[in-house]
C-alpha cells in the first residue's frame, strides 16, 4: 500500500477533485478486502480476476454518484457491487447448480465442529472448495446474514432448496474442518515425535 490509510471521506474528496492517484489509492486500500469477498463466491482465479475487474470499473464509473453516509459506507457500497457482480456472473454462466451431491458426509456431526485456532485463510480455502450452489447459499446465509426467503428470491430458487443447500454446505464444511484438525493433529504429533 502507498502511504498510510486514508479515511473514506478523504478518498472521496480526492477522487471528486480529479486527483490522478486517487483511484489507485482506493484500489490499493480496498482491493484485498474486495478480493476476499469476491473469492468466496468465485472459485476459479481467472474468473475471479474478470469479476473483480468489472467490479472496479463499475465502482470507478459510479463513485461520483455515491452518497457518503459515514465511515464504512464506502466499503459496504463497494462490497455490495462486488457481491452483485459475482452473483450475476454465476447466474449468467450457469455455474449455480443446486443439484445435491450424493455424499456420505451429508449429515452434520453430533458435536458442532471446533473452529478455534483454525487460521482464517484455511476457513476461506474450505469455503472456496465447496460446490458452487452450496458455497453461494452458505456465503449469503452465514456471512451476508440473509434469510432463506431473501436467498430464494435472489437466486430464483425455492426456500426449501436454499435450506437444503445450506444444510449440506454446513455438513461438508464441518467435515473439512474435522479433517483439517485431524491432519494438523497428526502433523503436530509427528513433529513432536521427531523433536522429542
Amino acid at each position, binding site marked *: 500500500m502507498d502511504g498510510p490509510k486514508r479515511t473514506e471521506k478523504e478518498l472521496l474528496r480526492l477522487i471528486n477533485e480529479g486527483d490522478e492517484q486517487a483511484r*489507485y489509492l482506493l*484500489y490499493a486500500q480496498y*482491493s*484485498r*478486502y*474486495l*478480493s*476476499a469477498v469476491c*473469492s*468466496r463466491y468465485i472459485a476459479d*482465479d481467472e474468473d*475471479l*480476476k474478470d469479476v*473483480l*475487474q468489472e467490479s*472496479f*470499473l*463499475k465502482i*470507478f464509473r*459510479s463513485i461520483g*454518484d*455515491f*452518497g457518503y*453516509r*459515514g465511515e*464504512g*459506507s464506502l*466499503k*459496504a*457500497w463497494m*462490497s*455490495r457491487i462486488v*457481491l*452483485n*457482480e459475482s*452473483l*450475476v456472473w454465476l447466474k449468467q454462466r450457469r455455474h449455480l447448480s443446486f443439484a445435491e451431491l450424493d455424499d456420505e458426509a451429508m449429515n452434520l456431526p453430533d458435536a*458442532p*465442529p*471446533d*473452529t*478455534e485456532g483454525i487460521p*482464517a*485463510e484455511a*476457513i*476461506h480455502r474450505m*469455503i472456496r472448495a465447496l460446490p458452487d450452489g452450496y458455497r453461494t447459499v452458505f456465503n449469503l446465509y*452465514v*456471512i451476508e*446474514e440473509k*434469510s432463506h*426467503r*431473501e436467498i430464494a*428470491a*435472489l437466486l430464483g430458487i*425455492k*426456500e426449501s432448496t436454499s435450506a437444503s443447500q445450506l444444510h449440506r454446505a*454446513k455438513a461438508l464444511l*464441518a467435515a473439512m*474442518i474435522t479433517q483439517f484438525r485431524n491432519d494438523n493433529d497428526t502433523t503436530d504429533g509427528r513433529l513432536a515425535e521427531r523433536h522429542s
Partner: protein
Amino acid sequence: MEDWQKDIHDRMEHFEADAPQGLWEAICSAESNAAAPAMGAGKGGSRRLWSWGAAVAACLLLFGMVQPILNGPETPPARMAQVRPVYKNKVLTGRGLPTQEPVCQAAGNALLAMGNTCPAGMEEFPLRDADAFGQPSGEAANEQTSAPSQSSGAPAASPAARGLQSDLPKDPGGEVDRSEKRKKGRFEIALTTATGNGGKARRLYNGGAVSASSVLGDSEWADSPLLGIMTMNRGAETERKITYHMPVRTGFSVCYRINDRWGIETGLSYAFVGSDIFEGTAANYVEEKQKLHYLGIPLGVSCRLASWRRLDVYLTGNVMAEQCVYAGSAKRFYIAGKLQGEEANALSQRPLQWSVGAKAGLQYNFSERFSVYAEPGCIYYFDDRSPLETVFKKRPFDFSLNLGLRCSLGKKKV
C-alpha cells in the same frame, strides 16, 4: 446461527486476501479501451453530424425542386369498389353442425350450447404494461358470486346469443307441457364461463439486525435491484401483500345422457389465475404480477331432479384436473420510490391442480335444442404442493357460478 457459524461469520467479515496478479493493469487497460472509441467519436462526431445534416438538407431541397417537374397533371384517385362490409353471423346453428350418428339411439330435441369469448389476459403480458393482467383489482376481487355474473359476460348480452335467437325455430304451440313432448338428444355440448372469488393476504416480516450496509445510497442497483431493496430494508419491518384476482374459467363440456335422469360429462376448460404481490417497505419494494394459465379436464355426473314446463333443475358433481400450462411473473423494483428495474420471466413451476365441485343447475329451455343455464356451486381445491401463491391456496373452498348455453345433439326420438 450456531456458534461455529458465528465464528466463521466474524472472521470472514473482515478477512482480506491477495488481489489477483495484474488486476490493476487489467483495470487500467479496460478503462482506456472503453475511453478510446468514445474520444474518437467526440472529436470527429460533431463534424460528421454536420456533414449528415447538410446531405439530408440537400436531398430534401433537390426533391422539392424536382418533384413538380416529375409529377404530371393531377390524376383523380382510383375508384374504389363500392363494397359494403358484410358481417356474417358467426353463431353456430344446428345446420352448421356435422350430422352425427350417435352410437346409441338419439332422442328428443337438439340443444346447442353457445359460449362467450375468452376472458381478458390470454395474450402475453407486456413488460412495461402497468396493468399486465387487465383484470379487475382491489375491491372487485371481493365481490360476491352474484356480482361476477355481470363481469363474466352473460350469454344474453353477447352478439353470439343475439344472432342465435334469430335462427331459432318458432314455437308452434302455446302453453304445452314440454316435459312430455320435449325430447332431448343423448349428447349435449355446453360452452360456459365461470368465475369465483378473489381475495387478499397480508404478512409482515422483520428485516433483521441493523448493519452498516443499511445506510447505503440507492445508486448502482440497476443490475440487482432486488439486492438493493433487501439492503435498504435491512432492519426495517417489511410487508408482503397479495391481492388475488377472481379466477376466470371458460370451456366446453360434453354430456352423454345414460337415461332421462343421469348423464356423465367431460370436456375441456381453460382458467386464468392472476395475483398482485407487493413486498417491501413503503420506499423500497417489489411489485410483482403473477399470471397462471391452466388447462383442465373435468369428469363428472349430472342428475336431473325435476322438470317443469321450460325449466329443468339438476345437480352435478365433478372432479377436475387442471394443468398449469404457463406461469409468468412480471416484477418491478422500486428503491426510494423510484423504479430501478423490471424483470419478466416464466416461472418454472407448472403445478397440477386437483379440485372437486358440486353444483345445482337451473336450465331454461327456450327451444327444443337450445337452453341457457346457471349453475351456482362450490368447489374445493386440493393443495398442489407448489410454492406458487394462488387464490386456490388462499381460498381452497370457494363458491362459483357457471353460466352458459347448451345444445343437445343427435336425432330426435320419433
